[in-house]
């Protein structure tokens, strides 16, 4: 589904140039759950941002089911993003001024889904995520685990082909962290492709494949046999 070739990304400041991605090649199959690991500053978040069309690389190619995404203009990028991708962040990134329901509804509004349909979809996912009694609450009134559930619900409500998760358990204690990882696994089992950046080997163990980055290069790739069999 995803074919990334020779991706390069350089951050420039007045004094220094930092190469964040240095000729990355990466293929992700449909329905795969891929973890990206590596030390701080290795480029994993940059890679995720590029995959999510939030950042532009200097060169290389990024194909998503035969569509070359790097050639798209800003408008096409945001259209592509809202139709095909969902995001889960370490810091949840919910809008503080909106309720749980409204936060989840937001991507549907941008996708121009009619109001009644929106209501149905949001209620469905709220039920699935087990946060029905929280739908009128504001993010600050929820625990970290609950906030991340909302964030996952928001990522899934548009039924994206690809979910990008950036350290989804980084701000959670282990029990809430596990809950979220199980949620992602369930999601993956229903066919959604997931790419996750993580520091935690425990979290990575939930995925099919683990890719290690260092200084902007892919230094190793590991297949998680337990999970891969399921995929095959």
């Amino acid at each position, binding site marked *: 589904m995803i074919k990334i070739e020779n991706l390069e990304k350089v951050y420039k400041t007045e004094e220094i140039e930092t190469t964040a991605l240095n000729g990355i090649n990466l293929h992700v199959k449909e329905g795969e759950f891929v973890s990206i690991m590596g030390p701080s500053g290795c480029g994993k978040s940059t890679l995720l941002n590029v995959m999510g069309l939030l950042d532009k690389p200097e060169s290389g190619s990024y194909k998503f089911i035969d569509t070359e995404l790097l050639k798209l203009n800003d408008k096409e990028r945001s259209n592509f993003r809202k139709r095909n991708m969902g995001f889960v962040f370490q810091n949840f990134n919910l809008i*503080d001024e909106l309720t749980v329901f409204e936060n989840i509804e937001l*991507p549907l509004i941008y996708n121009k889904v009619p109001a009644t349909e929106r209501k149905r979809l949001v209620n469905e996912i709220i039920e699935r995520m087990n946060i029905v009694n929280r739908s009128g609450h504001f993010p600050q009134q929820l625990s970290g685990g609950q906030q991340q559930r909302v964030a996952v619900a928001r990522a899934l409500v548009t039924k994206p082909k690809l979910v990008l998760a950036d350290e989804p358990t980084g701000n959670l204690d282990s029990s809430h962290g596990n809950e979220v990882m199980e949620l992602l696994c369930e999601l993956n089992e229903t066919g959604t492709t997931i790419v996750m950046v993580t520091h935690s080997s425990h979290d990575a163990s939930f995925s099919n494949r683990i890719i290690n980055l260092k200084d902007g290069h892919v230094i190793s790739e590991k297949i998680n046999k337990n999970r891969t069999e399921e995929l095959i």
Partner: protein
Amino acid sequence: MFRLNLKIALRNLWKYKGYTAINIIGLSIGLAGCLLIFIFLKFQLSFDKGEEKRDRIYRIVSSWVYPEGEFFTSGVPIPLIPAMRNDFSEFEKVAAVHQGGGILKIKNEEGGADMKLRQDIFYVEPQFFEIFKIEWLSGRPEQALSQPNMVSLSEKTAAKYFGNWKNAIGKSIRYDNKADYKVTGVFKDFPENSSFPFEVVFSYASFEDKFGKEWGWVTNRSEGYGLLREDLKAADLEKPLKQFIDKHYIEKSAAKEKHYFQPLSEVHHDARFSNFRYKTVAYKELIGLGVIGLFLLITACINFVNLATAQAISRSKEVGIRKVMGSRRKQLIWQFLSETALITVISLGIACVLTELVIPKMESLMEINVSFHLFTEPVIFVFMLILVVFVSFLAGLYPALIMSGFSPALAIKNKISSASAGGLGLRKVLVVAQFTITAVLIIATLVVVRQMEYMREKSLGFDTKAVSMVNIPGDSLSRLKYESLRERLLQLPGVRDISLTSAAPISSGNRTISFKYDDRPEDEKTQLNIKQADEHYLKTFNLPLIAGRNLSKSDTLKEFVVNEQFLKTLGIANPSDAIGKTIGLGGGASPKKIVGVVKDFNNMTFKSTISSIAIFSDKNEYAAMAIKMDIKEMMNTMKKVEQEWNTTFPDDVYEAKFLDENIQNFYRTEQVMGVLFKVFAGVVIFISFIGLFGLVSFIATQKTREIAIRKVLGASTLELVKMLNRSFLWMVLIANLAAWPLAYIFASKWLNGFVYRIEISIWPFMIAMVLSVIITLVTVSLRSFKAANTNPIDALKYE
């Protein structure tokens, strides 16, 4: 989406209540100021706009060109109008109007006391009502104003005199105890914004001097109007006018006579000419007010931009998330613009309430009646709509561009720095701009107030305190009673002296006349300002003689006392050289001797130079009694004066005004301007400084961590306060320097309108600087002291 954006907007406004309050208070006051100014401008610009044929209506005005300049008057010689009717086929209609005034007596038919009042009346030709469209409730102008001794009344006046306008027709009104006028017509009231305050209209046929032949004599009480033919343009009048002047001005005169056709739209705005409302508002003044309105709006918008960009970082996460969810930049720009529009609409609501509250004060200050009805006056509604759009874009666009431009990858990780939130440089520029406006207004206010003080305190060259000007009837019977009344009033304990005169030394009605000095062969090229007064004039007004003696008692012109300016104009170096020389007044009066010279006194406002003046006795011209009183017994004395007066002239109406009040009235425009400057400078200062307070609060919040770290490392509270204050002080100082040239240009332009004026000193500039520095220091320190005093652990704990 709109609903959701609205929710976010409202919740954000609530979350940052303090900043919302600052924005809304600032904007409300700014918008209220704009609305008030708009209502005033709208009223002033609406003058005579209701006239159907306004584009074709012209007033005929006059001017004389003397060596010392051109003098303008709204009046025309009385024979001009009939001549023009004859000579100008370019005009469809020509009409003469002459203003008079006197005592009207209306008989009470139900047996009560008769109504007696002093009233301005207008002798009007019926053609006037063919040029100007006014609905007649009863009668038709061509009949109702066709014969002598006919009067028509406005609806309100008819109701005032006779209970109901319908009762007025056929009734009789006695004018100046001389003649009875029959009410033959009632017309609808002229609107408030008409240059014609006609309430009592006499037929022009009743005007004594209607067949006047004197082309060299003009008063601004006689005006003429013409309606241009539809197929012609104003330029078509130039050639016939030249021929007309050549044809009719055949007598030799010291001045060159000129006439102009003034478009109706200029009658209310050209200050060179007067009008029957005796009020002109020059476009210059209207533009000045408009600029102040714009200043108010800009100051309030600057607050908005500053606070919005300062707040931008806290909105960055939301922007990031929205972009990740697929929002496009354009959508975000609209979202932020609609938030600004929301604040503007809320502020406008408050501004409407403020406007409603302030309108009565504005009406009494500006002596006008205005209305503020949103739904009956769509133009106000449209203006408000434009305001909302204008303010939303002016204040909202820049923050919207900044915020919508955040990189989503950085924004979702809270990595937007205050530098990339933009506006740090711009914010500084805006604060400087705001302080520049404030400083200009402070300086302007100080200069205006100082000039007003100067005019109040500067000696006019005569005594103005405790002098009351009491009118006296001018008919021959009343004239016989002048002396005996004077004697009786002098017996009253509080009365010091009394003089009978045509006018006080300073007055709005100045009569001028051509003259011949001694044995010089020709008339002088300048006009002589004349004041008829008895031998008590100099003593009553405390006018000091510098040569010769006072006038001796006489009822007719016997001798002259002149002023120093007279000597200067004629090139006489030594005052005593003029004594014994003669003056021959224009119109062929026999020359009389100069017996004395008085020290110069101001006979007009400080905007004009002192004229060459001659004072002489002429009982027939006396119109007032100047009563000099003991200052402590003034009120008591005035009551007794009124009683005596009423016994002496039972058929007339008593009117008295204190001279210093009259003088203050000459400076009404300047006083209004002084008040406006004080109010608007105060408002702008207030808006600027609440904005500053908000900005400092935000910066202090943003720097909480830096302050805490510095404190942990050993910085004292004072050092921290200094650190936070420093940049603001610099901005204020730069703003003051930028304001100086602007304020200097304004002040010198304004002061140039006065012949007697203060010199611009460094003080208003220094005071403005010190004042703004002090206010800034206080405002900034209030907040920075709080920030510097916080326990650093609290700040660092949250990291």
